[in-house]
């Protein structure tokens, strides 16, 4: 095994070692932090407490955060923006989106026509890895990954979100102090 040549300590190094200078320097710095935690509780000067007080204080996640999925609706008519084009399902690497469309009869300028509309939308959040490729594929800005990050459920089936959950959001129990 190759060995390392450590140079012999000089007299001043020996003296410093004897008086525990190396340890005292580190201890002095940690002491500064300890005092800072008392005087500077919000870490303004950089020596305070950094711990997030979740669940008492919910953190503000970034606007671009990839969290729980949502199907956006038209704010005026409250119709879904989804046109059942299936692009999100095709873009998903984990194949966790199912778009189920149905044809309805409509009349355009007096003539009967068939139109494809969204019937059911299944989003399996247990397999989702929140890569946001579906959100980028959506042509109508309907499918969106929101800032909601609390996705735990009691059962495995609870991870599979249907259209109603995706549109209305899921109710979570909020922590009360």
């Amino acid at each position: 095994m190759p060995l390392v040549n450590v140079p012999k300590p000089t007299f001043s190094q020996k003296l410093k070692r004897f008086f525990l200078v190396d340890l005292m320097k580190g201890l002095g710095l940690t002491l500064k932090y300890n005092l800072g935690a008392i005087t500077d509780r919000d870490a303004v000067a950089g020596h305070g407490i950094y711990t997030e007080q979740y669940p008492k204080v919910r953190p503000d996640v970034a606007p671009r955060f990839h969290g729980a999925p949502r199907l956006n609706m038209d704010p005026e008519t409250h119709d879904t923006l989804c046109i059942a084009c299936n692009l999100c399902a095709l873009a998903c690497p984990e194949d966790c989106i199912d778009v189920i469309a149905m044809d309805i009869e409509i009349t355009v300028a007096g003539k009967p026509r068939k139109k494809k509309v969204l019937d059911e939308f299944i989003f399996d959040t247990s397999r989702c890895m929140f890569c946001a490729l579906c959100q980028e594929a959506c042509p109508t800005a309907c499918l969106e990954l929101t800032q909601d990050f609390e996705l735990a459920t009691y059962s495995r089936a609870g991870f599979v979100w249907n259209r109603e959950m995706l549109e209305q959001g899921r109710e979570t129990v909020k922590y009360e102090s």
Partner: protein
Amino acid sequence: MHQVEIATTRETLLDSPEMVLNMGPQHPSTHGVLRVVLRLDGETVIDLDCDIGYLHRGMEKIAENRQYPMIAPYWDRLDYIAAVSNGLVWVETVEQMMRLEVPPRAHYIRTILTELNRISSHLLWLATHALDIGAVTILLWALREREEVLKIFERQFGARLTCHAWRIGGMPSDAYEGFSADVNRFVNNFPKRIDEYETVLSENRIWLGRTVGIGVISAEDAVAIGLSGPALRGSGVAWDIRKARPYAAYADVDFDVPVGENGDTYDRYLVRLEEMRQSRRIVQQALEKMPDGPVNAKTPKIIKPPPGEYYHSIEGPKGEIGGRHA
């Protein structure tokens, strides 16, 4: 690798002071899943045998059944501490296969964020390494700085660890509002923090006793067993892909490649600390030079590179990481 000799006869078992200990594959002190067969004399490790392969997740097979843009999120999961660097390998490989011209602004933002990722990866290394050999304070301090980097990642990419940072041909979106201010604040505060780590560790007798002369790898050995990254540079070999085959905007920034002398754990520690300082320098320069303009190349709707074999590698935080397309 060679097998650890295990004493079997009664004489060797009783007379020998050595002991064979099986550590892992699931062990609280191994980061990741790794089985190590150790031959011990008291507390000194004389010999060891590493049994790898427990982390095989069939990524290649997954990649076979995905389209090109879909594979990128899986690259993050190869090393979730360095997801931004890993993501860059894949998109750069595909871009080179398709001969896409990425705009300079995207190159600069990629440089800034991969260097921040190097800092965060090295900080996590420092935190856990110090924790493992008995310095708990550093864990809290290093994770505090890493948190600032992860906040920048969250604001930019929408995720903290598995960022899915890049898209083929550029970026999912331009730098967020306040990106320069956030990065500048980190860059300005960071040197003071590294000095604090050094104050606590670099001269500390316990730290020295547990790192100096431990795990020595000579330069020849390091090259022979195929080390790369800070572990190779700790042994005194100045090999850095950022200098040798510049990618992104590394050709336009000025930085040094630190090397160690002895190749022991202490040298690798010093190399990583210096690398963090150099990464900070790169980030600072890239932020000053960052041009305006688009961040996406003209990318075809269907990404289909020509068939053939390609290899492209970059300098990840832990060493060379390459993408091979066959």
